[in-house]
């Protein structure tokens, strides 16, 4: 059998199986960091007649599909990616959430 690559999982070398993991990463501003964008949206919601909206804060949603040997490794790598690039630790927090791959 040759090393055919399967989108959802397969062989990346002799006897090395991998799975494709899908993760959602939510990047949000740390509490206490000013969010003028969120404020502007809140004001618009008030104009749209929702005076009950007290606060709006806007973050980012990043979807990553990655090959991994196991979920723990994938989790660790996603956290590294988030620490290094996807989030700015000075002003942002993040959360990694795995999604079932179809």
């Amino acid at each position: 059998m040759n090393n055919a690559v399967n989108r959802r999982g397969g062989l990346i070398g002799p006897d090395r199986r991998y799975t494709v993991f899908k993760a959602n990463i939510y990047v949000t501003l740390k509490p206490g960091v000013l969010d003028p964008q969120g404020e502007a949206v809140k004001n618009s919601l008030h104009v749209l007649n929702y005076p009950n909206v007290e606060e709006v804060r806007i973050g980012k949603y990043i979807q990553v599909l990655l090959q991994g040997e196991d979920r723990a490794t994938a989790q660790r790598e996603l956290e590294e990616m988030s620490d290094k690039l996807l989030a700015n630790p000075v002003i942002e927090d993040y959360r990694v959430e795995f999604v079932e791959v179809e």
Partner: protein
Amino acid sequence: MKFGIVVFPGSNCDADCFHVIQQVMGHEARYIWHKEARLSDCDALILPGGFSYGDYLRTGAIARFSPVMPQVVEFAAQGGLVLGICNGFQILLEAGLLPGAMLRNRSLQFICKPVHLKVKNSVTPFTRKLREGQVLQVPIAHGEGNYYCDENTLQELKQNRQIVFTYCSPEGEESDAANPNGALANIAGITNQAGNVLGMMPHPERCSESIVGGIDGYLIFASMISWLEEAGR
């Protein structure tokens, strides 16, 4: 002196910096493409303004991982002069060469206009030709110049005299009205603790010749050259 001007995909103020160094200051400048590994021939580095990588994800976030950056970090660690202007300042923040981060302007608008800056520290290599308290007029052009850092960092910046420029009125008064973007403590420019790396949001390379309407930027480049000459380079 030789100034290296780092060019990232999307940098657009590199040519103005080159012009000021070579044509106005009369010193040598060369462009350093972001994939280059060599910059040891330079006496000082400039990270110019622009929209590196389209400001994707966060301004400066992707440029910070360009192949040239480890060399820039090493150059700074050895005490080399590094000037980051606008996007350059943002890249230095993302790279951790300067503390803090940039947020979107308070008004959410991109602001392009001349502002006044107060010189808070005139003993840096970038401001030694200026007087403490001197007011400069320098243009800004940015959407994310709202400087932020936590309380501990702000106290350190103040204690170490790392705040070099603040936004002010033409008379030198700091106030909310004189602050164009909401930056914490009206901060427009800071150095690192060692004082050899400066990041500033305004554009001194846009006001270094009278023909473009202002010459206050000239003194910042002149300060750098004077410091390098005295350092025997």
